[in-house]
């Protein structure tokens, strides 16, 4: 009766075979959340009533053997920057507290149309700016493997909810690593698709030339099923691609034989924790034993990635966040004497320290006299970084393998006063965003202290099917043994 919640792909199968019912799965999810989320704080709010009614409708469809999609009845939770009609959406910021969107983001609409059961909204760094979820205006999320540590960020809530088995699948966004890094730090799978593969309509924007929506699940198959549900052209997002969406699940078990995996020297340098390096190298060796060829490669412009990213991302953020002015929605300062004062005080009161820091850096980089030296130069270096990848793919490399994060999960508070140290968490994840490429993080082991370690794989643009197949081969080859969460 009170069976634990299955991983996403297993749950879909159990629904198909009538071994489980959507309403039972939802109750298992809600019980788990009630039992442990007081400690983890992955959720900002639950939508229990809406979820229960959606699950009952799914029960009926499943009983008639007429599911809307493979995901019909699966409990899913989403990062709190996806607009969901009638449900408060804050992006982790005080400035949006109380904002109730009058429309659904396209990915939310697609999940609903596929029969998924939306369980609630997940915690995040304010406006997705951060690598630890400590920048949430509503308190940090904790790592389920060690509550004194961060789950990473900015999609820390999305990662922790899956790792702690509160829901089998979640959505997040990844601008510089915000899906892959937390997936690595909590030990689940997180996929950032190619720029343009998934619609961003109705997603609170951070840096529009980098932002991409993607799934979290316990295994590669679950991430593939969830990507299937959200990928595709949307006429409300001009950057979304009309390339056909293949069936991601069918090609998954193709194995690693004949694949060429590039190992970039620049991703194994200074700052990489030795335990992380050992675990990632042993995962790559396992992939080699499955028939993949490991090829040393160079991505020579990688050392410029973080600096380039922090110009591009902050410049775009300073522009995107100009809309929070206290006029149309969200927080508004009381008693201003002028319109300018209304803007300046609303924003001073509504934004947290990191968001202010990035708006100021971005505004500086775009201001008169500095545009060429910073923003334009960074966009040119972006071209160089993309060329590095184009060259290795043209030379026959199928995927680039590296650590996802230079260290396992760090302590809450450890880096919060050192912005630069925090930014360097993203050193291996940022290049895929700058180049617009798909990237995935899969669990590849644990540190001696019992903290998860992630392997990152970066693939060719729009070849998520191939990337997922390689990730699945690595997942099977590594075979990280199941461990009990210390919760």
């Amino acid at each position, binding site marked *: 009766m009170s069976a634990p919640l299955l991983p996403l792909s297993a749950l879909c199968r159990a629904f198909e075979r009538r071994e489980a019912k959507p309403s039972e799965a939802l109750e298992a999810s809600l019980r788990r959340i009630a039992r442990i989320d007081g400690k983890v704080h992955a959720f900002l709010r639950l939508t229990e009533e809406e979820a229960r009614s959606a699950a009952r409708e799914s029960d009926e469809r499943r009983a008639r053997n007429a599911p809307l999609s493979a995901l019909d009845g699966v409990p899913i939770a989403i990062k709190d920057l996806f607009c969901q009609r009638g449900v408060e959406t804050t992006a982790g910021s005080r400035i949006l507290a109380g904002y109730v969107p009058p429309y659904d983001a396209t990915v939310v609409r697609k999940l609903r149309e596929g029969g998924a059961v939306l369980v609630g909204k997940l915690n995040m760094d304010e406006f997705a700016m951060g690598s630890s979820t400590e920048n949430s205006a509503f308190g940090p999320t904790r790592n389920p493997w060690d509550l004194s540590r961060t789950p990473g960020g900015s999609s820390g809530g999305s990662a922790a909810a899956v790792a702690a088995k509160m829901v089998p699948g979640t959505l997040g966004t990844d601008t510089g690593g915000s899906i892959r890094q937390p997936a690595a730090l909590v030990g689940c799978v997180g996929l950032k698709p190619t720029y343009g593969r998934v619609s961003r309509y109705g997603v609170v924007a951070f840096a529009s030339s980098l932002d991409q929506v993607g799934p979290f699940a316990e295994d590669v198959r679950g991430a593939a099923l969830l990507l299937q549900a959200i990928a595709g052209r949307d006429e409300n997002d001009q950057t979304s691609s009309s390339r056909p969406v293949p069936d991601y699940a069918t090609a998954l078990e193709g194995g690693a034989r004949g694949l060429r995996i590039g190992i970039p020297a620049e991703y194994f340098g200074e700052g990489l924790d030795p335990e992380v390096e050992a675990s990632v190298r042993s995962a790559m060796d396992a992939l080699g034993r499955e028939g993949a060829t490991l090829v040393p490669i160079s991505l020579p412009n990688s050392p410029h990635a973080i600096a380039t990213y922090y110009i591009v991302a902050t410049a775009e953020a300073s522009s995107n966040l100009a809309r929070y002015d206290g006029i149309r929605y969200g927080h508004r300062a009381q008693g201003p004497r002028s319109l300018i004062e209304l803007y300046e005080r609303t924003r001073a009161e509504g934004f947290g320290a990191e968001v202010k820091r990035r708006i100021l850096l971005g*505004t500086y980089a775009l201001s008169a006299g500095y545009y060429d030296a910073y923003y334009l130069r960074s966009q040119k270096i972006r071209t160089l970084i993309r060329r590095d990848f184009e060259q290795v793919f043209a030379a026959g490399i199928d995927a680039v393998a590296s650590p996802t994060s230079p260290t396992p999960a760090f302590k809450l508070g450890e880096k919060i006063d050192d912005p630069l140290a925090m930014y360097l968490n993203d050193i291996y994840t940022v290049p895929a965003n700058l180049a617009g490429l798909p990237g995935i993080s899969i669990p590849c082991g644990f540190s001696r202290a019992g903290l998860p370690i992630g392997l990152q794989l970066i693939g060719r643009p729009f070849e998520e099917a191939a990337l997922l197949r390689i990730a699945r081969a690595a997942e099977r080859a590594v075979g990280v043994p199941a461990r009990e969460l210390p919760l």
Partner: protein
Amino acid sequence: MSIDRGTVRHVARLARLALSPEEEEKTVRELGRVLDYIERLSGVDVSAVEPLTFAGDAAEAKESMRPDEPRPSLPREEVLEQAPEHDGSTYLVPRIIE
């Protein structure tokens, strides 16, 4: 690269962000440190390199323009409901012309 307090004030004004004196002081230090790090980009040879302005498929983006035709928008009442101050038909702001 150092950044002075006057520059921080100027940038904060451009960003429409009121800063306390403590925040100004902190910003001088923190931005200075981040800009020092970013300074490394100045040595990269970018002559004859085009900026990457679109990370997706540029050819496809050009073809994906839809016709510019009016379509139904969200109901005015529902949108105004989210505003801190409105009069039922427009947003209200402090007087800007005496």
